[in-house]
């Protein structure tokens, strides 16, 4: 075996962490041709889902689609492993529509591991990264806890909840990264010695019970849907038998039980010191924060197809186990539910994300990237999205290539990372559609049109995949042009049809495109009407029809957002040179100068979102930028342009 010398093992990129962030990072880097090692604490626990058995949902689903559109793995993997899938918000606008799937957790892990196994340039190493070898603010390599040394210039830290991890229930706690797994206790100190500031966060997971002991007759069945596509843009998932979820609600009894035992909560007793997520609150916190609500939903979700264990989404708690049992049995339908895994909280070190650039590299230690829960987020999708970007940028950096950055107007991924590194976090960050200002453009249905070109240029997608996207774009244009140039007039039949759809008849001739703007007129019906009146619109697949319909219907809004982006683009993407001397700017507030100096934004847009930096400060900054002679680039090279 190789000796534990500094010359031992050499990689272009090393990723620490076989969670959702780490696997995307490792896959991206190795697919881009870099010699990559993925170091993780247990090779038997790759892509494990320690909390909810689901991928997607509103906001998160968009992230998964974007990951897929760039050539990442999460979308394809959940398509292999889902046991239920549905499209949410079909009755609402396209900006908030999203897929959500229930996973078979074991299958999710196994199929991800199979993909890793088949990936060239990638090795997996079981071990714990214990120290970073940094000299002159540059990463040189990594020490594993067992004494091995990995020489590398680029490292992606994706340690999830494991850094000095501690699991907690009531007033009991023990060191662990997750229940039953030892934490990674060594790396934090080494990071701090390298000048990296860490914070402490906390997150909790609900209990699992035996699905045979619940009473579905007191609950609302939540079946899946037969959908033609899944998360992936590139493959159609095989049809399968789906497993239902169930919905119940907490009762006054549940709330009383919680209230009576609140003094035993680790939050109260001080066992937990880290900050927890406001958006995925424990049942204890929900009852404290919303005393006016007399019930909260509880979704009962299967953990897999080969187990009876079910997950109680909504009953997250780290109250003592006997109290958890009381809370469960006070909830309708769960009176006799038998506890299998108690809920618990985990507390861990995270890296304060304002220390990162927009490409997720540390500003303090060059070559050190980080992604996932360790950057202060929560959720598999948020983790995977960062993992992909960190992996791409580690791979680019290993070859000295300019970083890849997505803007807020290009992707939810751009919103996520900009929020993290610009505004920082005071609790685990989770994605919502409301965080994106251009959400009508950043839709679930058009992720491939927005991002596939990047994926292909980075080497993560095949030419043929991009071609398929281009073909569709072309067909959408073709059909739109046809509809806009085809005039319909009433032949008696047409107005009758319109009226039966609940919309007003036409008196003047109108183009098909105009008619499609009416919410009552579905494109499929319109195509039929066109054919009936002697036109032949041609045959298009579902995806093309969907795009044409959405664009016609929301054209006004879409145009407005596009105009807004154009208006802001000049400032938003205006690059600030890396070495720019923020501390020498005159005429801005002291606070603004301090923050700019500390955060070193890469673009004017990023600077403008820093709390404490006013529009007036930005105008002064712009003036200085002009003077500094960074002219030439009207827009930034920093944000990647397709």
């Amino acid at each position, binding site marked *: 075996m190789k000796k534990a010398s500094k010359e031992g093992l050499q990689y272009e990129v090393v990723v620490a962490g076989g969670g959702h962030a780490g696997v995307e990072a490792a896959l991206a880097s190795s697919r881009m041709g870099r010699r990559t090692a993925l170091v993780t604490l247990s090779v038997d626990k790759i892509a494990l889902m320690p909390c909810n058995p689901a991928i997607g949902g509103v906001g998160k689903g968009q992230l998964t689609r974007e990951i897929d559109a760039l050539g990442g793995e999460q979308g394809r993997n959940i398509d292999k492993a889902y046991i239920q899938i549905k499209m949410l918000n079909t009755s609402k606008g396209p900006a908030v529509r999203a897929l959500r799937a229930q996973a078979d957790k074991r299958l999710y892990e196994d199929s991800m591991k199979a993909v890793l196994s088949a990936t060239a340039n990638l090795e997996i190493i079981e071990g714990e990264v214990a120290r970073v070898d940094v000299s002159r603010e540059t990463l040189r390599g990594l020490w594993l806890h067992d004494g091995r040394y990995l020489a590398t210039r680029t490292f992606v830290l994706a340690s999830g909840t494991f850094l000095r991890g501690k699991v907690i229930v009531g007033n009991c706690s*023990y060191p662990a990264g997750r229940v039953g797994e*030892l934490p990674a206790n060594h790396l934090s100190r080494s990071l701090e010695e390298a000048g990296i500031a860490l914070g402490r966060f906390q997150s909790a997971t609900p209990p699992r019970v035996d699905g045979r002991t619940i009473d579905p007759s007191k609950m609302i069945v939540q079946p899946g849907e037969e959908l033609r596509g899944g998360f992936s843009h590139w493959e159609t998932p095989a049809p399968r038998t789906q497993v239902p979820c169930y919905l119940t609600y907490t009762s006054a009894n549940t709330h009383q039980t919680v209230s009576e035992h609140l003094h035993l909560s680790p939050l109260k007793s001080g066992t937990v010191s880290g900050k927890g997520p406001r958006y995925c609150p424990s049942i204890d916190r929900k009852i404290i924060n919303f005393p006016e609500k007399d019930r909260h939903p509880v979704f009962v979700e299967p953990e897999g197809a080969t187990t009876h264990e079910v997950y109680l989404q909504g009953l997250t708690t780290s109250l003592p186990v006997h109290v958890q049992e009381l809370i469960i049995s006070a909830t309708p339908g769960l009176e006799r539910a038998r506890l299998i895994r108690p809920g618990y909280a985990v507390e861990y070190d995270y890296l304060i994300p304002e220390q990162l650039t927009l490409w997720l590299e540390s500003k303090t230690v060059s070559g050190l990237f980080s992604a996932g829960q360790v950057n202060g987020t929560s959720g598999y999708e948020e983790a995977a999205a960062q993992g992909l970007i960190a992996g791409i940028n580690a791979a680019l950096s290993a070859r000295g290539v300019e970083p890849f950055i997505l803007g807020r107007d290009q992707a939810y991924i751009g919103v996520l990372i900009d929020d993290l590194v610009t505004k920082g976090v005071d609790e685990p960050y989770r994605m919502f559609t409301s965080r994106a200002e251009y959400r009508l453009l950043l839709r679930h249905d058009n992720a491939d049109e927005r991002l596939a070109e990047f994926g292909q240029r980075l080497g993560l997608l095949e030419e043929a995949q991009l071609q398929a996207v281009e073909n569709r774009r072309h067909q959408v244009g073709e059909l739109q042009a046809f509809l806009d140039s085809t005039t319909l007039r009433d032949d008696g039949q047409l107005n009758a049809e319109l009226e039966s759809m609940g919309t007003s008849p036409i008196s003047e001739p109108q183009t098909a495109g105009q008619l499609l703007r009416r919410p009552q007129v579905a494109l499929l019906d319109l195509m039929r009407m066109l054919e009936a009146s002697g036109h032949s619109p041609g045959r298009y697949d579902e995806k093309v029809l969907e795009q044409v319909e959405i664009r016609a219907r929301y054209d006004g809004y879409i145009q407005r957002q596009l105009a807004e982006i154009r208006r802001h683009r000049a400032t938003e993407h205006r690059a600030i040179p890396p070495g720019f001397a923020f501390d020498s700017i005159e005429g801005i507030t002291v606070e603004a100068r301090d923050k700019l100096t500390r955060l070193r934004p890469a673009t004017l847009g990023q600077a403008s979102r820093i709390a404490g930096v006013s529009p007036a400060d930005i105008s002064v900054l712009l003036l200085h930028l002009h003077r500094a002679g960074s002219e030439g680039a009207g827009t930034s090279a920093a944000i990647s342009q397709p």
Partner: protein
Amino acid sequence: MEDGSGAKAHASHSSVLVVGGGVSGTACAGTLASRGLDVRLLSGALDSLGVAEYSPCFLPAGAGEERLLLGSKEPAGLGRAWFENMWALPGASWGVVDRRRVSIRLKEWVEEIGVELRQGLATTIARVPQGWLVGTAFGESFTAEVAVLSVGLSLGGHHLIGEREFPGARIGEVPSEGLLQALKAHGAVFDTGEERVGPRLWRLPDSIPPFLRRVQLRPAGTLRGGAKPGTSRLAFGRGPRTAGDQYGAEYLEAWLAPTPPLAGADVAVGQTSECPVGLFPDGAATGEWYVSPGLEQQVVGAPLSRRGYVVRGLVFGGEQAQDTQERCATREVMEGLWATGWLAGAGHTSASLLSGIACADAVERVIRQRDGRRAPR
């Protein structure tokens, strides 16, 4: 029990409490449940229930295949979980299991057969009027008439990688320190057990050492003339396996050294000469290959996904049994407290499995006798 804050936490009771859901614990708990007993299985790691933690090599208990496959008392389901996910060299008495698949099937089986599963790390144990009380790291407590300990090497367990020593019976596992102290306080006496585990390769080396020959492993299930592999409810992911590319394929491939092992190579540590030495596939969802301890020096040029290591842990009383019968045995270490699997001296996966069944037999007898005594009153 008090949890320190004044709230009452009642211990929940069962006839039998099995602590540790590894090879022997799942066999024992499942067997008891299949015979109608009220049994709870407490394990620190429900996600890896029943996993043969150390290697995919399923070694014979001594008397070979017959002995293993006979299992006259083996409850339906237990054998299937193992054998449907096992490949054997035709005619040989050993096999290679897909550890992951076995684990998933075993969990399915113990749930189905009525074992009360519970995730929890046992940290204390005490004698109480009802029998035994076991406490967990999360402050829960469970009582049972009979407690069975099947925590493998986690009592005082530590592992050595090269020169360095680390806590835990395997990489990443939390050692059962509290449980050990409590048992010592009750006067338990231990010996030290030691075993070597080989490394894993992430891929096969470009050139296979010439002393290894390629063999085809056939599904063990078909050897039994009944069950077929790959009949689970789900289709699983596939590694880049060459010959066994498709899960449930006719055969998998392994690389074997001629038996007896290479002269001079340190390959037979703690294992008998009937034990095969070579490179074995580590399941269908991974590209990993398990390397027999000692062979790592010979297989160079392939990346290691896991290093080999030595495990030390405590075993209940007496010399580690050499006799086959005894190796599959179980021990009552104190009244109403049984040990099974590694902890009782079972050295191999198959021995641990048989030990678990033997323990269930013994415990069932005890419980039925007590019930008999109680009944007339």
